[in-house]
């Protein structure tokens, strides 16, 4: 686990000074960031700004999971990569950019596909998990591993001009399965990977919606609490270890 420190170094104070004087943020929030490890799953459209801003702002340890390689067709919105890095692992490329921005952030590259067989120890090693992936099977996998590991899951998704942002498994709020006990029929899942959203989330449990082509671009929705009969996070859970998520979600789950 990340070794906690008791005070910032002088170079850190110089770097984060503008945040330190922010009312409602300050030294305590900066120390919380510095002593926190976060795992960003996916270094694509959502993972790009996510990793850049988290790394820049002073997260102590940042894990980046992605098995894909940088392709020219990614660069129109995956701004953490660049043209010279075509063919490089996206996790590697994202880590390079974060290290150039902030050498104080310890970046860990997970150049792999997250699966039932390997997810739990990786999730367990971080304090907070951020789902920036684009398929249903990984969403259920991350949800279950986060419930089993007791980690909050920040889940972002985007499609075309719409975006959604939710925190699951946090402060008596729901897990992903409380909201969506069964996966959608495979024919309803489109993984277009185009669009974008980033935001902040709060108590009580809410979902934030973004839509660039409606008159009310943003709305915040009050969500249910944790469901006592949820098979994952409820009072008597029936799932106690990771399952086969590709089978659970049907054939479309890992399509892109």
């Amino acid at each position: 686990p990340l070794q906690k420190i008791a005070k910032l170094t002088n170079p850190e104070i110089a770097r984060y000074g503008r945040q330190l004087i922010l009312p409602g943020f300050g030294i305590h929030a900066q120390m919380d960031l510095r002593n926190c490890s976060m795992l960003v799953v996916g270094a694509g459209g959502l993972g790009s700004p996510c990793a850049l801003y988290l790394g820049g702002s002073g997260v102590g340890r940042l894990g980046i999971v992605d098995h894909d390689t940088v392709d020219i067709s990614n660069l129109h919105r995956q701004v953490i990569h660049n043209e010279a890095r075509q063919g490089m692992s996206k996790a590697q490329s994202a880590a390079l950019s974060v290290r150039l921005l902030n050498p104080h952030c310890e970046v860990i590259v997970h150049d792999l596909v997250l699966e039932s067989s390997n997810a739990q120890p990786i999730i367990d090693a971080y304090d907070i998990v951020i789902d920036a992936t684009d398929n249903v099977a990984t969403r259920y996998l991350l949800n279950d591993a986060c419930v089993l590991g007791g980690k909050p899951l920040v889940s972002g998704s985007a499609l075309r001009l719409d975006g959604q942002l939710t925190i699951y498994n946090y402060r008596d709020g729901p897990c992903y399965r409380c909201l969506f006990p069964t996966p959608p029929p495979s024919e309803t899942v489109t993984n277009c990977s185009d669009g974008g959203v980033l935001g902040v989330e709060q108590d009580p449990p809410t979902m934030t919606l973004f839509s660039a082509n409606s008159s009310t671009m943003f709305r915040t929705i009050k969500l249910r609490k944790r469901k006592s009969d949820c098979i994952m996070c409820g009072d008597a859970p029936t799932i106690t270890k990771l399952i086969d998520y590709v089978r659970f979600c049907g054939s479309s789950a890992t399509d892109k």
Partner: protein
Amino acid sequence: MDPNNTLRIELQFSGGMELLFDNQKMIKANVPAFFSTESTTEKHAATIGDLIGWIASTQLRERPELFIGPDGSVRSGILVLVNGADWELEGELEYELEDRDEIVFISTLHGG
């Protein structure tokens, strides 16, 4: 209670749901205030459950299975909001519609 009454319900669609409704993000619908209770001639006040069936049969232009599930609720992966809140807080299918309610159907997104 006049059984010919209708309720003015604002339906909204998001996250791709609108593609099932001729790309309309919003429909101002006049929904019957009462529905027949199954296998009797009695009528009951319209619930969200009734609304879902009514939408599937009167508003949907194509592929109703992308909207309604085999149990008469919305298919999995759709979140329903009643006046801005998760419908689970309002009784889900049993919630009784009121005039001028805003009901939102959101399909979960899976882009990253």
